[in-house]
């Protein structure tokens, strides 16, 4: 049986751990608030962009449509852009995105397609590397970046578009976690190329300046950048939400453990006292 000193040490170490998890929870809560308002501030732009795209895409159709909008007509090589976090200690956040990506990869491979993976964020890369190392094209780390700006989305988008133009893949899908609330983050797969255009654009006849093609060829790359930017923001809000609830759980578990350990400690202290008393009394009786 553990000695009293062992028990005391054990309780002290659990208490120290609890302090850390509590601090992490509070930091995550503060960061979550910022990430959440950033994600919410970005939503209007993305939704407006969709409306504009729907309006303009209604006008062009058939063979005139650019490849970024309609795809290049093939679906042999798939690119999966998997956005995950840079750090762990955030519950199932990274795992659930990776799981969704893995299901997709397996179904694509089973269908005889070629799969390429572009990882954004180190954690997803580490998990996917185990099974799919030869499919991974590259890893983009966002470690040093404190506040995700539009520039990062644009940088990744340029990368994806230049790969597309070089004919490295036919279809691109984006994986990220949509932030619904602190306790619910939904891993999501979204079609990037060909663009997912919401139906029901305005049928009004537009005037274009300079002309449709020029606008569309500027709009489509920007749309991809916006989608990625939004995914990154949603991801960072989800990450902190997930981390906050994970750390909240950890703090509560540590509290329970402390309670249990303290009870054991007190019980064995009592037992020791009783044992000493019995020894004294029986010693006195023997005289």
């Amino acid at each position, binding site marked *: 049986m553990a000695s009293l000193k062992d028990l005391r040490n054990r309780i002290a170490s659990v208490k120290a751990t609890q302090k850390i998890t509590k601090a992490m929870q509070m930091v995550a809560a503060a960061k979550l608030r910022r990430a959440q308002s950033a994600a919410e501030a970005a939503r209007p732009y993305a939704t407006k962009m969709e409306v504009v795209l729907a*309006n303009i895409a209604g006008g062009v159709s058939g063979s005139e449509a650019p490849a970024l909008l309609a795809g290049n007509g093939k679906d042999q090589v798939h690119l999966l852009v998997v956005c995950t976090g840079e750090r762990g200690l955030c519950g199932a956040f990274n795992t659930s995105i990776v799981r969704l990506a893995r299901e997709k990869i397996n179904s694509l491979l089973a269908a005889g397609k070629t799969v390429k993976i572009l990882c954004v964020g180190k954690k997803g890369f580490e998990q996917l590397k185990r099974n799919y190392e030869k499919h991974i094209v590259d890893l983009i780390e966002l470690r040093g970046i404190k506040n995700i700006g*539009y520039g990062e989305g644009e940088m990744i988008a340029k990368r994806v578009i230049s790969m597309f133009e070089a004919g490295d893949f036919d279809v691109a899908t984006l994986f990220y976690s949509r932030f619904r609330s602190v306790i619910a983050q939904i891993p999501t797969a979204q079609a990037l190329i060909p663009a997912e255009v919401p139906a029901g654009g305005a049928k009004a006849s537009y005037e*274009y300046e300079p002309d449709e093609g020029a606008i569309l060829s500027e709009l489509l790359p920007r749309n991809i950048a916006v989608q990625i930017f939004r995914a990154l923001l949603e991801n960072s809000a989800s990450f902190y939400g997930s981390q906050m609830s994970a750390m909240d759980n950890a703090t509560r578990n540590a509290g329970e453990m402390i309670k249990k350990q303290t009870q054991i400690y007190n019980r064995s202290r009592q037992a020791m006292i009783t044992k000493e008393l019995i020894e004294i009394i029986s010693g006195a009786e023997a005289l």
Partner: protein
Amino acid sequence: MATFPFELVSPERVLFSGEATQVVVPASEGEISVLANHAPFMSALRAGVVTVDGGKRLFVRGGFADVSPAGLTLLAEQAIAVEDINVEKVSGQIKDAEEDLRDAKTDDARNRATAVLEGLRAMLAVARH
């Protein structure tokens, strides 16, 4: 005068959302003035100033203007109210950008640095007026 809904959004936030009677937009082929019931129209933007009702001035760079029956929507890559532009800070950024341009090795990096520099210079010119 008749008003119409006007929205100016950048990827980071919404800068303006409300009713306006007249908005002057720096379109790629020249400035256009949008009034209520304008015909559906779409244009790319160049760096310049958006003027709302002859008063509020907002600097925008890159993006699109979308005039539809539902109103005017400006999607700007970068947007800031003119009175919020900090001349010293922008001058500092211009210096940084000039250095970036000198250090740029590839054509791609050079083009990007030039675009950034042009945007900053336009912003500074606007703020000085």
